[in-house]
């Protein structure tokens, strides 16, 4: 999937993946796509909750081995 920016959140625990995702989105324009790679298993539910509450749709969420890859579109 195409993306405009990537955030490496590997090795980070709650709440850092979410807080850093928000910070990354701050620098982007509406419609752009952010890719986030995390290793915190809690981020699967947290990223969906973040998307629901902030109006930045989660367009893809998948597990690749021990990593979780998310694509968010800036709303």
């Amino acid at each position: 999937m195409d993306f405009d920016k990537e955030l490496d959140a590997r090795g980070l625990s709650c709440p850092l993946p979410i807080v850093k995702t928000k910070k990354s989105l701050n620098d982007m324009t509406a419609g752009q796509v952010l890719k986030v790679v995390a290793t915190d298993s809690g981020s699967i539910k947290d990223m969906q909750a973040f998307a629901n509450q902030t109006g930045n749709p989660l367009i893809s969420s998948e597990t690749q081995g021990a990593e979780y890859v998310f694509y968010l579109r800036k709303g």
Partner: protein
Amino acid sequence: METKRMAIIATKGTLDMAYPPFILASTAAALGYEVQVFFTFYGLQLLRKDLSDVKISPLANPAMPMPVPMPVFVQMLPGMETMATMMMKNKIKSKGVASLEELRDLCLEADVKFIACQMTVDLFDFDKDDFIGNVEFGGASTFMEFAGKTDICLFI
């Protein structure tokens, strides 16, 4: 969409109890909440420039996971608190959990407002110069003004 608000009263100054206010405040700010944290009594220690005195004690804390079982009379020995704090900080670092300083900075960066209880400052003769700069000083009434308009209000 109207901005949601969250208020927290932080009353504890130990390492373990320092985390919930900063984690919740930084997360809520990331979710678009307007957040205020009111620090009172021992919670004021979390606003010091130097957080190295924020410690954890195994004493009277039977739920704390220990690498080896430790009788209470051993937990009382001098240096045990410092040792437990060092071990906890190492664990925090190795698991990728943010330091208190980092979480506090993230809160400030996200415009979380910190209010220090003036009464506590007077009670314990704290020096305001020991606290970080981005703090307002106020009392219960200051807190209520914001807390009365919140969606989430927590006492920690």
